[in-house]
Every structure is written in C-alpha cells, then in structure tokens.
C-alpha cells in the first residue's frame, strides 16, 4: 500500500508542478494578481507531495519491501539501516526522486523567503522552476518510476547496495552534489525572469546572488566529498581521476565560480550584464548536462552505476528545450547595446573579467576533453582517448593564471586601482622565498613544486596582506577585524582555501610515494622515516560481509604513532564481491595509507603502503572555499536590503 501512496503522491506532485509552471505564467501574461500570487501555494503544495512520495520510498527501503523493484535491486535485509535509507539514491530512479525533492525544496525556499522581491518577478521565477520540475517529474513517471513493483515474483531478498556505496562519504556526497546542481536552477530562473520582463538592471543579480553562493558552496562540498570518498574507498589512494562524471560535476562548478564573481560585478557596477545572464544559463545547463552524461549511455565511466541508454533521448529532449529555449530568449531579449561603465586596465572589473575568462576557458577545456573523443569518433576522424596528461597540461597553467589574478584582485578597487604595486610587493616576495625553500621539507627540490607552492602561498599571503591593509586604520587589529564585513571575510576565507588546495595538490602530486611490501606476521620494514610493523591478521565479521583485518602498527623514532586496521571484505549478497578498506593514519601534514593486498601463504600478505603528504589540504581547501561562499551569504547587507525593500 505504501508504494502506491508514494506513486500517487508523485502523480499529484506532477500535477502541482504543471500548475506551478502554468498558472503564474498565465497570471503574468494577463497581469492578474491572484494568479501571480498562487505561485507560492503551488510551490509549497509540490514540496509537500514530493516529500510524501520520498518518505514512502524511504519506508519501502527501510521495511525491506522487495516487491518494489529498486528496493530488490539496491537493498538487502542484511544491509545496516542507515545504508538502507541511502540505498534509495544508489540507483537511477531513486536518485531522480532525490533530485526532484531537492528542486522542490529550493522552489519552496524561494517561495517562502523572497518577500522583498516584486510579486511578478517571483511568480516568473517560481514558474520557471516549476517547468524544470515538470520535466523531471514526467521523466520519472513515464520512463523511470521508482515505485514499480514486482508483486507476483517478489524476491525473498534484495541484491544489496553496491559495496562501494556502503560508506558514510557516499551517504552525503550525492545529496550535496544535487543541492549544488539544483541550486543553480534558482540563478537560472532569476535570469529567465529578468529576460522575460526585459528588466535587466542590477536587481536580478542582487536577488540571485545569495542563492548562487549557497548552491556553489554545496557543489564545492559535494565535489570535495567525492574526491575524499574516492581516495579512501577505491583503495588506490587517488583523489581525482578526470573521469567523465567527475568532469560533469566540475564544469558547472567552474562556470558557477565565474557566475559568483560576475554577479558581483553586475550587482555593484551594472557591468557584464549579458555575460552574467549567459553564465547563469550555462551553469544550470551544465548541471543538467551532468545529469545527462551520467544517465545516458553516451559516456561511460567508473561512475555509471545506473546508466541506461534508452532514457538518454528523453533527457536530451528536455535539455534541448531548457537550453535552446533559454538561449533563444536570451537572443531575443538581452539588451543589444549594453550600458558599458568605464573602468581602467587595472581595476577590479578588469581583473574579474580576466578571472571569468580563465574559469570559462577551464570549463571549456574540461568540456572539450570530455566530448572530444565522442565527436572525433562520430565524425570518423579516429579514436582518441583523452586522459589525465591532457587535462593536467591544459589545466595547470589556467589554474596558475587564476591564482595570480585572484591574489591581485584582492588589492584592486572598482573603476581604477591605486597602490597595487606597493601592496603586492610583500606577499609576492614572501611567497617567492618560501616557495623556493619549502620543497626541501619533502625531500628533493623540484621546480614544479616551487611553482605550485608559490601560487598557493601567494594566494594565502595576499589574503593576509589584504586583511592587514583593510584593518590599517583601526585602533587595534582585533577591533578592525570585527568591523570587516562578512562578505569580505567570506572572500578571504575562500581565497585562502583556494591557496591551501593548490598547495595540497602540488605536494601530494609530486611527493607521494608508494611501497609494496611482502610482510609476514611479526615483520617490520622501514618506509621513509616510518617503521611498519605487521602484527598479523584476524577474521572480521560485519552485518553483510565477512573479511580479514590486518593489524599494522606505524612507528616513528621507536614510538608507536598509529594502529592501522586495513580490511579485505567479502560482501555476501553481491556474489562475494571483494572490497578493500584502507587503513589510514590521517594527519595534517601527511597521511599514511595502508591497504591489504593478497595473502601470500605462511601468514604473509602483500601490503601496500602510501605516503601522502598534504593530501588533507586538498579537502581542507575545498571546505574553506565552501565556508567562504556561505559566510558571504550571511552578510548583513542582504538582511538590510531586504528590510529597505520591504519598507
């Protein structure tokens, strides 16, 4: 019964999304106030119905209702309860329902919070989001119904969730990513509303900015979590693979980063209007493309847990309507001769423009690398495989340029910039000297290490210098610090995060080492400055797996620093699929990463030991970037504006 309620709620949610898309739009066309005002109610109704549907599906998973096809496919009686819940989005249908739930959530949030936004704008925004929802709900109902049942031949037990996904990182990674993807629909909807109304002043940018920041912060967290998960779960110690699905989430992130900055220029200076509109359209389009790439059979990758080519055409059609429609609207309604405020060659505007160009170039590089093999193959120009060497060669210079400009940007002012030379001198020299010396901390000096470290340190020192400069007139530094705006601190935090991540990537890429050891119980071997002692193995039993756990002690200078317990697990319900659980001694400056290989007989095992310096800095950087974006949203400026506009 519960799955039927869920299915019915989903059908009703589809109806409410149709109303949400249609009625306020009609109200806008007719200038009818009641119809415009109905948008809020439909948004909340849709939210309630999708929630009911989601809860019903969650109940089916938690109650082991294997008559529901996707429960039988993705869950198992032995699966721990929290993974039963997250198994919901372990496959195609369930992850779509999560997408729709999040979209409904964002829509309801816009409906509830935007009291200061003119009713006509809000109605068009909500209607646009409703139209996106119509697309996804109909896709679900007609091609991928999560509530499909197998009542006659109900299996006794399910096939279990892919063991790779049975992990806390995977519990939160997809929702975070989806929060980000879907969040860009808000900026998109505001851009559409601005185009529809033909009112392309700074106001739409001001309304869309906090939403965009939040969406981008979530996407940052999602990507960071994905990288972290791949690192400890896949057992190779890698943290980024330039895999098509990673790229699919990275492209909207890069365009989103450009959008976050471009919105600032549009709001503050009224410049780059058309550019910002296009970025808003593309950030969301690329989010949809990300969904398309994962869900269709066109590109396959490590991630295609739920690929199904037959659904591809539907998504493609939907994508075509959304992108084609919005770009047509742009072509017809965007201002022809945009008002161009003047600014000097070195000004905040020009630096942000350069930053935007670099970010968009980076997104194009990723797009090209992902689609190039497909295009060349289709045109019969040969088979190509584009791998990490291409991405690294193209991406590293762009990232360096971006880091340099970001640092400069923090000292710049609108229109024209003074004192730039004096301000940059200290951080530049300091970063240069430190970067030249610092590589010795990890062994042999490498020029690439110095280069990467320089850009990372430059970002950090420039941020600090900027704070010092901003607080120069305060009585004490602390009182000055307290007076700084949250939006400014958010920027500093995000830019330091960027620097931290650059340093992490540089050092872990150049100074990681890996040793494969044959170890019998009682053996001890030296790896770098560490001593690895293998104490033996013990059997270990989990709820849905059995395995072997190694006991490895890590010693340094005769003192034990960590006990590592790597495991080999055999998951019963998945045809005894074998998984490696790495034992990791995480540290601020380095990770020691131990994975069990195979038993070699006589209680000896192959043991793989990785030394990963600064690997945590990559994710720490990601977290700081996300935190910065969120801090900026909490700036009281947005609250003040809201008050003023309400009055």
């Amino acid at each position, binding site marked *: 019964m519960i799955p039927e309620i869920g299915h019915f709620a989903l059908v009703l949610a589809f109806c409410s999304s149709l109303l949400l898309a249609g009625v306020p739009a009609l109200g806008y066309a007719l200038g009818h106030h009641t119809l415009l005002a109905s948008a809020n109610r439909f948004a909340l109704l849709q939210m309630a119905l999708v929630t009911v549907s989601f809860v019903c599906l969650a109940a089916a998973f938690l109650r082991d209702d294997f008559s529901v096809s996707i429960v039988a496919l993705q869950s198992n009686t032995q699966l721990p309860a929290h993974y039963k819940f997250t198994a919901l989005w372990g496959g195609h249908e369930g992850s779509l329902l999560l997408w729709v739930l999040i979209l409904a959530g964002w829509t309801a949030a816009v409906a509830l919070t935007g009291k200061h936004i003119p009713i006509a704008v809000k109605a068009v925004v909500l209607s646009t989001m409703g139209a996106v929802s119509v697309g996804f709900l109909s896709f679900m109902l007609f091609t991928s119904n999560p509530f499909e049942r197998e009542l006659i031949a109900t299996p006794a037990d399910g096939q279990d969730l892919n063991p790779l996904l049975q992990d806390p990182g995977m519990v939160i990674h997809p929702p975070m990513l989806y929060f980000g993807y879907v969040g860009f629909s808000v900026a998109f909807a505001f851009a559409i509303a601005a185009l529809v109304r033909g009112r392309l002043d700074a106001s739409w940018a001001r309304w869309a900015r906090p939403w965009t920041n939040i969406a981008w912060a979530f996407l940052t967290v999602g990507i960071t979590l994905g990288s972290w998960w791949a690192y400890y779960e896949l057992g190779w110690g890698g943290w980024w693979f330039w895999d098509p699905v990673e790229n699919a989430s990275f492209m909207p992130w890069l365009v989103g980063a450009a959008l976050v900055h471009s919105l600032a220029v549009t709001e503050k200076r009224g410049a780059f209007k058309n550019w910002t509109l296009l970025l808003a359209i593309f950030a969301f389009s690329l989010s949809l493309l990300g969904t398309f790439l994962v869900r269709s059979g066109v590109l396959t*990758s490590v991630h295609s847990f739920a690929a199904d*080519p037959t659904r591809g055409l539907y998504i493609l059609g939907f994508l*075509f309507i959304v*992108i*084609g429609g919005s*770009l047509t609207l742009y072509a017809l309604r965007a201002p*022809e001769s945009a008002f161009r405020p003047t600014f000097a060659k070195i000004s905040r505007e020009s630096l942000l423009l350069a930053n935007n160009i670099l970010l968009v170039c980076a997104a194009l590089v990723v797009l090209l690398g992902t689609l190039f093999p497909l295009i060349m193959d289709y045109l019969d120009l040969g088979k190509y495989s584009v791998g990490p060497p291409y991405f690294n060669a193209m991406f590293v210079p762009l990232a360096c340029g971006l880091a340099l400009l970001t640092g400069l940007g923090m000292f710049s002012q609108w229109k024209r910039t003074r004192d730039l030379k004096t301000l940059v001198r200290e951080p530049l020299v300091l970063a240069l000297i430190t970067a030249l010396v610092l590589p010795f901390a990890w062994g042999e000096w490498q020029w690439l290490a110095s280069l990467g470290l320089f850009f990372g340190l430059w970002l950090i020192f420039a941020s600090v210098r900027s704070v010092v400069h901003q607080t120069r007139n305060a009585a004490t530094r602390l009182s000055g610090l307290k007076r700084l705006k949250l939006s400014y601190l958010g920027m500093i935090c995000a830019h330091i995060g960027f620097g931290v991540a650059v340093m992490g990537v540089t050092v872990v890429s150049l100074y990681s080492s890996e040793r494969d050891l044959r170890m019998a119980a009682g053996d001890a071997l030296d790896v770098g400055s560490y001593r690895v002692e293998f104490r033996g193995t013990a059997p270990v039993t989990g709820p849905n797996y059995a395995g072997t756990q190694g006991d490895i002690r890590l010693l340094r200078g005769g003192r034990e620093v960590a006990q590592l317990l790597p495991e080999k697990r055999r998951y019963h319900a998945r045809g005894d699929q074998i998984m490696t659980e790495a034992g990791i001694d995480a540290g601020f400056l380095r990770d020691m990463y131990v994975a069990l290989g195979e038993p070699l007989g006589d209680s000896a095992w192959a043991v793989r030991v990785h030394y990963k310096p600064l690997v945590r800095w990559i994710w720490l950087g990601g977290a700081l970037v996300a935190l910065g974006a969120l801090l900026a949203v909490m700036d009281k400026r947005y609250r003040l504006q809201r008050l003023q506009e309400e009055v």
Partner: protein
Amino acid sequence: MGRLKLFIPLFVFLVLAGLFFAVETEVSEGEYDPKALPSALIGQPFPAFTLPALLREDPVDESLLKGKVSIVNVWATWCPTCLFEHPFLVDLSERGEVVVFGINYKDNPDKAREWLAAKGNPFAVNIVDESGKLGLDLGVTGAPETFVVDKAGIVRMRYQGGLDETIWQRRFVPLLEQIAAEETL
C-alpha cells in the same frame, strides 16, 4: 547587427545539440556504439606470441586459443574500469559459457597476482604482456578491451570498455550463438 550577435550562443548550442542528437539516436538504436573500435584484426588469426603466463611456470603461445571459443580480456591493475568489470568476469567464468583468458597488459605481474588473489581469478590463463608488445599487435589502445576468438583461433570481435551483463547479452551473446551455429553446420 547587435541583435544578431546575441544569437551566437544559441547557434553554437544548436550545432552541438544536433551532433549529440545524431550520436544518441544511433546509440539507442544500437547502430552505433561509441565504444566499438573497428579492428583490422576481425576475421584474422590472433597474432602470434610467446609470452610468460601469470600463474604458470611455462610460457604460452597462440595455440592456447585454438580448439575452443574464448574471450580474451585485456586488463591491468592500473585501470579503474577493470576494477568495475572484474566481478562480472568472475561471474562469467563461473557460469562456464565461454573460456575467459586474460592479457595482463603493461602491468606489474606482482600487482596483478595480488589483484587476482584479492578479487578472485576469472582467467583460465593469464598472458603477461608487460612490454605491451602483444597489445600493440592487437591494436589495443587502452584497458579494458575484450576480444572474441573462435575455435580456429580467428578474432571475431573486439570490444573496448568495461563489460557488464547488459553489454554481454546485447553484444556478445548473439555472436557466440552465431559461432555455435556455424560449428554445427
């Protein structure tokens, strides 16, 4: 003129969309597989080789592939997709429909042994192609790739990319049935 410029993004998108549509239509109709690689080797004998085997003392040569229908899977421990298709290969070899041989391609044999001990060994024999010479003869561009070889040792099909049940049923089973039918004639 200014208005025309604003149509540029739409135009670029339409070109890309047209391309995508063409690709996607053929993919869903099964006419075109972005992962299918044409191979000059189809209908030709499997290239000659004499190479060590992973878990055997003696080296093996191309005669290994004669006398039974087999699939030859090119894999390596450094290849992420191999990790994902591995459970399927284990499953396939247990079903016993077809003999599964492996070519451990440009890999470290110790790591390969470790991998097989850890994840199960679906391969009847594993040819060690550490230098990638055999892979070169086969025209391998990356791992994983899978070849179908008939009783006469003739290469009948090449498939690039990871295997799973769907791909197996759609791409391999019809050919294997056809080969079986040829033999009964």
